[in-house]
Each structure stands twice: as C-alpha cells, then as structure tokens.
C-alpha cells in the first residue's frame, strides 16, 4: 500500500507540471483559436534559457523567472509575427496546425544546433526531503506543487474576477460581438499570448527541475502529455485542463507502481482513448473558467 501512496505523491508533482503547461496550451486554443503545436518547443527553449542563466551562476529560482519571461516574449512574437498574419489571410484551423508544426520543428532544430543533443541538468540545492506518511518528496518538488497551486488560483481569479479575464472569455465566446462591445480583442489576444507563454516557460523549467536530466529531444514528449490533459478535460477549457492534468499525472505514476514504469504512459493514454470514446467533447466541455463562474 505504501508503494501506491508514494506513487500518489510523485503523481502530485507530475500533475502540477502538466497542469501549468496544459492550462496555457488550452487557453491559447480556447481564446485565440490556434492549436499551437510549437508550444512544447517554446517550453524546451525556456528550459534552456533558464539553464544558461543557471549555469552562469544565477539561482534556479531567478532562472525560472527568466524562463517565464522568455516563454512570454517568444510566444507573443510567435503569434504577432507568424500566426496572426496567417489567420488574417484566412488560414483554416488545420492550416494553422501545420504552420505551428513546421514552426515547432524549426525551433527544435535551431535549439538542437545551439545546445546540442546532450543530457544536462540544473544546478539546484537538494534542500532535503519532506516526509508525509509514505509520501516522500524533495523540497523542490513541494515547491513545484506550490507554484502550480498558486498559478491555478491566479488563473481562476484572472478569468473570474478581473475585467481583463472576462474580456478574454468574451473574446473566446464571440470575438465579433466582443469588438462590437468596444473590447480591443487584438490587445486582449496579445495579453493571452504573454500569459500563456509565461505558463509555458514556467512549466518547462519546473519540468526540468523535476527531472534528473533533460535534453532538447524531450520537447515532443511534453507535447503529447499536454495535449492528452487538455483534450481529456475538454479542449479550450482551463478547468478541464486542470482536471485532465490530475488524471494523467496520477494515472501515469500509479500505473508505474501497479504494473511497471515502462507502461505508465500506455495506461494513461488508454484511459484518454476510453474517455474520448465515451465523451468525445472531453470531461468538462460544457463548463470551465471560459464558461461562467459558479
């Protein structure tokens, strides 16, 4: 039993990383109507920006902030320079997927040329461990969980209580009507890319902190997990992505304890397929932060 409780603890860390990433990904789709397959490439690029700062002697926590800023600015520019011009030309949703996939490949290959294919790791204090029954986590892992909780609450507060967040939801629901109300939808979308880009950057760096090592080749793996969590919860729904992250994060770790670590992703994605068969719109397609609060 202790094995499962310990696995549940590791699942909390995994789901925290996935939740940060998946909420950013799903908000990009829900509000700006772009399925951004370059998300994981921005994520892994942020990991390496933080790595560069970290290995220059900067604390991992300041490097985390640098990764978040890089993710925000890179995502903002990606949208302004690449995606928006294509959307203005009337490129279809599928066309935008291809554009983002091509962008992703370019970013990854440029990053590979700069950083090389080697496995690297952050310099971070071990900080000891925290034990809660059979759950044993490092201080860094507990802080990662804390960061995820704070960010999820912040996203909830943004979308539910602020004028900007409500304008984001209005833009997601009906962009033409939003413009008729005087909402500057272009500026709202700019802010969405900055916020979701920051989430992408943070997710990448905390994923790097939670791994012994990382490499440029980890990017596509991130993307599969992020899409699984976002689709499981209901595409475009931030609360759905949070729920999807909980399910994917815990299932991967618990199945590792039950069967073998080799099969943990197989089990998680089998459940994803099952949910898609029974409820193709995802678990929370009718609700979520983009829908009305309460």
């Amino acid at each position, binding site marked *: 039993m202790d094995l499962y409780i310990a696995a549940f603890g590791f699942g909390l860390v995994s789901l925290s990383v996935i939740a940060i990433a998946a909420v950013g990904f799903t908000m990009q789709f829900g509000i700006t109507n772009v399925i951004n397959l370059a998300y994981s490439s921005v994520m892994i690029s942020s990991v390496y920006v933080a790595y560069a700062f970290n290995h220059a002697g900067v604390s991992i926590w300041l490097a985390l902030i640098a990764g978040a800023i890089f993710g925000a600015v890179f995502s903002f520019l990606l949208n302004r320079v690449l995606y928006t011009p294509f959307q203005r030309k009337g490129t279809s949703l599928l066309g935008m997927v291809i554009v983002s996939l091509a962008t992703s490949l370019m970013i990854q290959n440029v990053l590979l040329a700069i950083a090389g294919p080697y496995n690297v790791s952050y310099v971070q204090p071990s900080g000891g461990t925290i034990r809660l029954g059979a759950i044993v986590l490092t201080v860094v892992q507990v802080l990662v969980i804390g960061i995820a909780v704070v960010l999820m609450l912040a996203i909830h507060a943004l979308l539910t209580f602020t*004028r900007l967040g409500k304008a984001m*939801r209005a833009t997601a*629901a009906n962009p*033409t009507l939003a413009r*008729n109300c005087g*909402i500057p939808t272009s500026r709202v979308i700019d802010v969405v890319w900055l916020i979701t880009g920051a989430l992408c950057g943070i997710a990448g760096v905390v994923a790097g902190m939670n791994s012994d090592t990382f490499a440029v080749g980890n990017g596509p793996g991130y993307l599969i997990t992020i899409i699984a969590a976002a689709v499981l919860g209901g595409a475009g729904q931030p609360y759905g992505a949070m729920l999807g992250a909980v399910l994917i994060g815990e299932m991967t770790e618990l199945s590792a304890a039950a069967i073998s670590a080799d099969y943990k992703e197989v089990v998680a994605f089998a459940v994803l397929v099952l949910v898609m068969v029974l409820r193709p719109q995802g678990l929370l397609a009718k609700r979520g932060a983009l829908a*009305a609060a*309460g």
Partner: protein
Amino acid sequence: MAVIGPNGAGKSTLLKSVIGILRVTSGHVLLGTDDVTNHPPEELARRGVGYVPQVQDIFEPLTVLENLEMGGYLLPPARVRTRIDEVTQVFPALTSMLKRRADKLSGGERKMLAIARVLVLDPRVLILDEPTANLSPKLADNLLQEQVRRLAEMGKAVLLVEQRARAAMQVASWTSVLVSGTTRLEGSPGELLGRPDFEELFLGAGTGLKPSSGSEEEER
C-alpha cells in the same frame, strides 16, 4: 428607422457594413456629419453606436451580469455598476437572473439581455438586426411595440431591420424598403402604406403585407 425587405434583400449585409464587420466598397456611412465608413466595430462602439446582431447576440458562456459588464467595457469601472443598475430598471426581469448563465435563457430573455447589454454603454444610435427572429408572435409584438418604442422615447436613434414589415412600420417614423440590395422605396410608413402599388413594389409579388394587427404570424 426601419429597413424592411424580403429574404435575401441584403438587410443584414447592410447593417454589417454600417457596423464595420463587412468592408464597404462603395458609398459612405455617416454618423451625424462624421464619415465612419469602414471604421472598426470597436471604434464605432466608442462613438456611441450599439449593435444587436440577429444571432450570436450574447456571450453564451458568461453570466447575465458578466454580459452586461462586457456591454460597459468602455466605461470607467466605477460607472459600469451604476449603468447596470439603470439598465436593469428598464428591464427589471433581468434583476433576478444576473447570476444565471446566458445560454440558459429563453429566446425572449436572451434578446432582452442583448438589448440591455448594448444599453449599458448608453449609445446614441442603436442598430437592431431582426430582433424578433425566433421569437413567438406575442413576444415579437411586445419587443417591437414596447421595448423598441421605449428605446426611441429614451432619445436613441434606432435603426431596425425587420422581416415583420408591418409591425416594424408601426413603430418607425421612417421606413426604407430594400430589395435585391437596393433601396426600392423610402418614406414615412403612412406615405408608403398609402401607395396603392406599395405591395407590388415591395416584392414585385406576395409580400406578407396584407393588413393585420402587426405580427408576422397574423400577416401570413
């Protein structure tokens, strides 16, 4: 002012061009003496033009209150609450449903919210695209005879596009008849209805304009 005409006459296209959703390729859109041709919708909202589209007229995933708040997006935050209070006095039925999700509203409630949302900004000009579409005859009559008339009495210039031609003419002081994208006739409703050839000019054939008390159902 009412713009009437048969299906496919170009009424909604005209409004979308006026409101900046579609690009105008010839002619001008004047707001008072200002040329606002091809100004974007958000700029027209700033200038006091409110628009209620025929469909997708509310933010469905948002609550009624949040819809009204979005209607007042251009106002200073402190003023929005006051305006919502004022608008809900005009539409008191909305008061009890402020926390309800907008997609849970009935057709009549939904249209009431759409008009109330626009009114939060206190626009000078109100553009309504077939506000009675999908409403029951009773609700449609109520909307045109009471609510649209009330808007005009509040000092708003109302540009109304309607398929329920006679009912629209009963509340309008000026009517334009649009057929195949061009203005076939215009004048006061009294003048137009007084013309013996009005029905023929309206459509060239059956118009649905036989004398009635106003609702489309009865006209048919």
